[in-house]
């Protein structure tokens, strides 16, 4: 079974959370109306709303004298896909890295669920990224030596899941992204779109709360890119995960629920 591209004619309710991965998925198009019910501010206790998976508040990041982020506020809801756009070198990838706990902000806060990420140490952030986040990169960054199923199973095995179970879950996930026939193929034997599907399966196999994608369709043609982004957004939001996609491509952004533009390290448009 494979996921379908989100429909454009349906309203956009919250995608259901914590669905079983084997349940069928019917994604809805997110663009038709604003994403309902997501608070732009934390609740009075300062802790993000339960529906809010990811929150960045007042994020500032410097690279020496260069300003990467100049005070960014952003929230992403469970089941919501957020596209981050903007000119090159204006802070898109920096924002993604800060939200994902890869970089620590010089000022501001990052919350994942009820946990403040920016104050965690490097080791704790590493564990958090492994267990609660998923990543998709432009060039898929799969390990060339491993077949598809082992590439997907690797994060689970690193986390202590037995090989048998990890491979089983990986194959199940690969089946859901339409690659049940390619489980034993290596990245070099897959097309660009197939390899990116494997990368999506790897990002989702650990049931993450949020998925970060940096130009996930940058190396693909338009048609394949559309399929891949639909799959990513559909599969992740179907599970109630928040998705943050950095992209230059309007077509990709159009397939997300919401778009923010970053210019000179600030959110210029929502």
């Amino acid at each position, binding site marked *: 079974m494979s996921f379908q591209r989100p429909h454009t004619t349906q309203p956009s309710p919250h995608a259901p959370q914590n669905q079983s991965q084997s349940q069928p998925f019917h994604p809805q198009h997110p663009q038709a109306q604003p994403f309902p019910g997501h608070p732009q501010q934390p609740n009075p206790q300062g802790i993000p709303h339960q529906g809010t998976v990811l929150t960045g508040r007042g994020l500032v990041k410097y690279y020496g004298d260069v300003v990467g982020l100049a005070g960014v506020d952003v929230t992403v809801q469970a089941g919501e896909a957020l596209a981050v756009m903007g000119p090159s070198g204006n802070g898109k990838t920096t924002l993604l890295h800060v939200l994902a706990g890869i970089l620590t902000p010089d000022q501001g806060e990052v919350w994942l669920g009820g946990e403040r990420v920016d104050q965690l140490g490097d080791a704790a952030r590493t564990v958090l990224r492994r267990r609660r986040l998923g990543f998709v990169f432009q060039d898929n960054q799969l390990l*060339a*030596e491993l077949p598809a199923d082992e590439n997907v199973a690797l994060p689970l095995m690193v986390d202590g899941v037995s*090989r048998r179970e990890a491979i089983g879950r990986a194959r199940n996930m690969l089946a859901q992204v339409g690659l049940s026939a390619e489980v034993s193929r290596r990245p070099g034997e897959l097309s660009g779109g197939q390899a990116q599907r494997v990368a999506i399966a790897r990002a989702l196999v650990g049931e993450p709360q949020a998925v970060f994608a940096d130009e996930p369709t940058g190396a693909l043609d338009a048609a394949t890119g559309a399929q891949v982004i639909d799959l990513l957004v559909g599969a992740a939001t179907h599970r109630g995960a928040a998705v943050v996609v950095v992209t230059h491509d309007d077509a990709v952004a159009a397939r997300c629920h919401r778009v923010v533009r970053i210019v000179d390290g600030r959110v210029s448009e929502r």
Partner: protein
Amino acid sequence: MNPMTDLGLRFVRRPGPGGRAANLAALGATAIVALLVSFLIAGSLGLTHRSDRIGWRNTDDGEPKTAVGAVNEVHDMVAGEPVNRVDLAINNPKRDGELPPPPGLSHAPKPGEVFVSPELAKRWSEDLRTRYKLEQPTGIISDAGLSSPDELIVIRGVAKDSPGVAQSDHPRYLDTWRGNAMDSRMAMLLALVAFGIALVLFPLLSLVGQAAGVAAKRREHRLAALRLAGATRRQVLWLSAVEQAVLGFLGAIAGLIGYVVLSPLIARIPLGGGRWYLHDLTPSWWVTLIVLVAVPVLSVISALIGLGRVSITPLGVVRGQTRKSTSALRLVLLVIGPIMLAVLGTGGAVLPLVIGIGIAALAVRVVGPWAVQVIGKFLARTAKGPVVLLAGRRLADDPKGAFRPVAALVLSGFVTGFLALFMPYGLTQDGKDVSFQLYTNQGQTAVVAEDARKRLSEAGFKGEVTTGDQSVSISVSTTERERLRTVLYDVVPSQVPLTDAERDKQDAGVFMDMRLGVALLLGLVFVTGAASTAAGAVGTALDQAAPAKALRRSGVPLQVIERSARLAAVVPVVAVGLPVVGFGALCGLALSGGQVVTRGSSGVILLLGQVVVGVVLVAVAGAAGAPVLRKASAG
């Protein structure tokens, strides 16, 4: 200038991010190759230079009537040190004036004249005055007639009918002082060098390949960008060749400088009877030229072969995704070397033996990747955790790439295994040091014994003189060993009184050479192995940088990646290296006809040393790759 040449030179000057580390690693590895090649060539030539100066001493190519001299070598001792005494009877067959002197001597020695080396002149003592009946030596032998500045040698002029050089005693006759005959000890060492070259050739070539490969890895993306900009494949290969040639040339210069700087230390190695004259080891202009040309050319060829394995397209460098599996047919090579050695045996000529050992070493090099692939598949199939899985898949996916960095180290296992069972003995000396033994004709023993008793009595020594079948044994309890020897000097003409232990010591020089030669050989292989393994680790780290970066961002701890890289480096060394030790031992046994030639614990010490050094080298290699991987995968 060709624009690609210009661009290549510019890339060497500005290698770009990460390129400097890769270029330095490549340059360092190339420098080590150049240093070792210089050492091997200059060392071999040094041996021939030595032999040219002293070869006449044991030449036997003349006829009694036409020879310029008759030579008899006698072992002597001074202050507990072995001394070589050359009794030389000059024969001037043409009688056309003054005969040219032997090398290093001011004139051809007349009977009773004694020339000594500078070291022996320093030790000229009362005993030597008495033995040679001279207050001072007639002359000092110059460097032109010595093997080593440490050499202890006496060249004594004797009459043609003296014992030892008389025709009835079958001395050596020589037609010229500068013949083609090699000194036997130097010839043995040269044979050892030939074996050494056969054993280190493949590790050295591996190291050249590693050096070229490390620099090439950083180059690949740039090459793809150039293809995108319209450069043809031929042009980007030319650019690579220019870059590698410059790096190879710089590495060769660094290696030569390193060799020249180290040569005073190398000259202190007491191989072949003592330290070396520095000029024996100084590379000539043509050796320098060979190194400066050969090393860059080999580097360029290696780099081009490496790039030939990948397809440089405008969209990037694409490796063959389904690498050709290595065939078990390679195992056939394993039997050729041992069979050849068994057929030739220890009586075989040096060249076929060298070829036999070379084929056996080549077999290890060829079979290694196959073994790595088998082990990798097994690990990947049985892995329970990510570290073993990653390491196993890496080994199975690119066994040649995995084996290349450790090939030198694994080959050192072959050398060790070979020598552990086939190191010519003589290292353990069991001769007794209690009595002088003199050997004479059956009818002479009583006369010699009587003369010895008389001399002992006159000199005030009390001792026991017994006669055997053809020997006389003189046992005296004294602390004045050298005076006693002087008293008994020439009791048997042309024979110096020595104990069995002292005779062992005379012979020990050759075995000491072998032991040192083996140590040097292993040192060479280990240095090559260390450099190759370290360069390989850097190359692997650069290869894995992009996926390692992605894995780290995804929350996979760096330790998992590092541990799998370390495991992938250790497994070929241990899992292939240990059987290779056994294979080396098998070759040693094949050559010796099933005999364990090595005596005592030398073999065990060698094996233990090999294991320790191997483990240390793998640790060093891991240390070389880790910071590169950490840096390259950060962010």
